[in-house]
């Protein structure tokens, strides 16, 4: 057991931090308030990711065969931490590099690899994820969107919901039922669908989280060639399960929370409230949650670095990560007081960003179910 970063990892972190200091524009704080899905950030990501790619830092964790640098999972973690603590300047592209690309490497045809991987590793493309449906949220395998085979094409009909980044995306990583009447995990396939396919329509769902945050995506006789299918037909669930393994660490929400906390402390100092012991206590409390989430995530990274199969430790890390995200969001409102109420203020933006924590990417309740059954071995009904 040891808890030291290697000299290489430390150097990588320093270089990244320096690069971010130099590269992020002066108005980045303002720009990044609405989160990775905002118009401004999605646009910026295209410029920023290209510059990252030039240095080999967009996909360092990819194998060299696909233009990566074979960086370790620990270095990947450093990258994610540095990015999230700066408000994720990669915008939606964190998904591309973290799991969409690697899943295509694993299951894609040569054609698919040639089409998608360079675009991703050069930072030229935006993706969205077509998983949730109105009747399939936490219970994802209840999904109904159908992709019916018609000659060399699939004809897609159905609705996806809560789709972030759909308004910017070039492609959708879509889950659809390719075997009519199939149930649950069976009969699902993954399709890599160009978003400019006729028959795809978007509706923005106005929300308190932020502008253009959620979308509904309607598929009406949207026709795509069968070559868009990733992996074997009707075996899509295996593809998704594999993809989710890459996501097992999840976004390092704790890194952003820790950065936010430091800034809240600055705010309190400037406003003369840092000497208030009740403020100190609250900041200290939130800091414990950041550190808890950090270490629990590291435990998962350690398993990944050792090539171990995914375990329920992932769920443990996720619960801790979402807990701190929400707690810091609420603390921001409290510490900034009435200043927090202004639309677009630092605290307001943080709070809204934190609201979806524990709802998106597998609700906290689902994580807790898995911890209860897989770790505590509590009985089923």
């Amino acid at each position, binding site marked *: *057991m*040891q*808890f*030291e*970063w290697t000299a290489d990892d430390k150097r990588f972190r320093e270089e990244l931090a320096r690069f971010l200091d130099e590269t992020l524009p002066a108005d980045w704080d303002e720009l990044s308030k609405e989160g990775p899905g905002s118009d401004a950030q999605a646009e910026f990501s295209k410029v920023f990711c290209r510059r990252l790619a030039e240095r080999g830092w967009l996909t360092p964790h990819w194998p060299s065969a696909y233009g990566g640098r074979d960086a370790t999972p*620990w270095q990947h973690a450093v990258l994610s931490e540095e990015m999230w603590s700066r408000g994720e300047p990669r915008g939606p592209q964190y998904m591309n590099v973290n799991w969409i690309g690697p899943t295509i490497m694993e299951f894609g045809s040569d054609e698919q690899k040639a089409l998608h991987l360079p675009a991703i590793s050069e930072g030229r493309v935006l993706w969205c994820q077509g998983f949730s449906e109105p009747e399939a949220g936490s219970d994802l395998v209840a999904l109904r969107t159908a992709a019916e085979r018609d000659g060399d094409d699939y004809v897609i009909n159905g609705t996806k919901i809560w789709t972030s980044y759909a308004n910017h995306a070039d492609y959708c990583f879509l889950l659809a039922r390719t075997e009519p009447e199939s149930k649950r995990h069976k009969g699902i396939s993954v399709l890599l669908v160009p978003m400019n396919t006729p028959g795809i329509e978007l509706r923005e769902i106005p929300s308190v989280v932020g502008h253009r945050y959620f979308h509904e995506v309607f598929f009406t006789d949207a026709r795509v060639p069968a070559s868009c299918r990733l992996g074997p037909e009707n075996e899509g669930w295996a593809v998704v399960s594999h993809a989710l393994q890459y996501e097992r660490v999840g976004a390092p929400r704790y890194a952003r929370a820790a950065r936010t906390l*430091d800034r809240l*402390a600055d705010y309190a*100092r400037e406003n003369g409230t*840092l000497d208030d*012991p009740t*403020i*100190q*206590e*609250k*900041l*200290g*409390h939130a*800091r*414990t*949650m950041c*550190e*808890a*989430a950090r*270490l*629990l995530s*590291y*435990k998962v*990274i*350690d*398993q990944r*670095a*050792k090539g171990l199969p995914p375990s329920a430790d992932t769920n*443990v890390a996720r*619960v*801790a990560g979402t*807990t701190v995200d929400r707690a810091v969001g609420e603390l921001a409102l409290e510490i900034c007081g009435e200043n927090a109420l202004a639309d677009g203020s630092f605290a307001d933006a943080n709070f809204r960003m934190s609201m979806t924590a524990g709802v998106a990417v597998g609700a906290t*309740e689902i*994580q*807790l*179910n898995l*911890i*209860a*059954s897989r*770790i*505590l*071995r*509590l*009985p*089923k*009904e």
Partner: protein
Amino acid sequence: MDFDTSEEQQAVLDAVGVLLDRHAGPKRAIQLARELANEDANEDSNEGAHEDTYDHALDRALAEGGFNDIARSMSSLEAALVTEAVAKAGGRCAFATAALVAANLGDDPNDPHDSHGPIEGPIAIALRSEDGPVRFAAHAKHLLVISNAGNANSAGNNGNAHLIALEPGVIEPVSSNFGYPMGLVPNAMRRGGRALTQENARIIDWWRLALAAEATGTMQSALDVTVEYLSRRRQFGRTIGSFQAVQHRLAECFVQIEAARWLTYECAAQGAPREGAATVAAHALAAAARVFTETHQLSGAIGFTHEHDLHVWSMRLHALRTELGGVAGHRRAIAHSRWMGPQR
């Protein structure tokens, strides 16, 4: 980074496991606590009967096994691992203070090998400013007195710790429901003693880490015994542990405990840095309250009885929580260290 125990570490854990199987466990803890109750009922029994409420046999076995010195012979990380194991087994002796605090009383805070020579245990540890019961004090040979100048948060050197040799019987045992033998140490008895070279603030760092390691092992056992009970207890025609509302609460406890564990290990491996020590104490002892509440609430009436082992661990959690300024103090210490330190 490496989250697996090394072979050496596993060997240490196996060795202490064998020893704890023989000398500790809930039955032993209950038996020792009963001695105290009997003594209350029978006040004019032979003098020194309270000696029995402290687990001298376990204390001796750990010392003879070399575990008290493991921070020096190996590192403080191994000391934290063993401390957690002793707490998990319900050990009723002052091991944490010996292994994590006393072992780090070096002249040079960065060098645990530079020590004052062995201090005869058991060692109790107390804040100079306070005036109440102290864990293990009635059985201790030495009392380590830490001045926090009325504020456990003060940064920088705030004077040096003192060591007071205790004659047998000078500290009166006091009856407590909180799972540890305690002695009443009035403020006047916390004066004087031999000044150590280690500064108070540094010892507080190690003390915080020791509390976290103890809390982690104690919480884990409280959760284990609760999960075990709820997995067989049936009501409404089904196992209580199969209710989702129950499962979620136990899973939340697990997340808290698991975080306490890794924060403890990291902090120990890094030599109890100020902010890290305050962080792990604040986290673990906040989790302790939650684990207490949930394990008892979900166990129902049986949890309060002597027939069920839960109380062996659960009640101790609250004793750990009250030490050294409590959770609010630990949290404020984080803020002082991180955002209000001299570097600002």
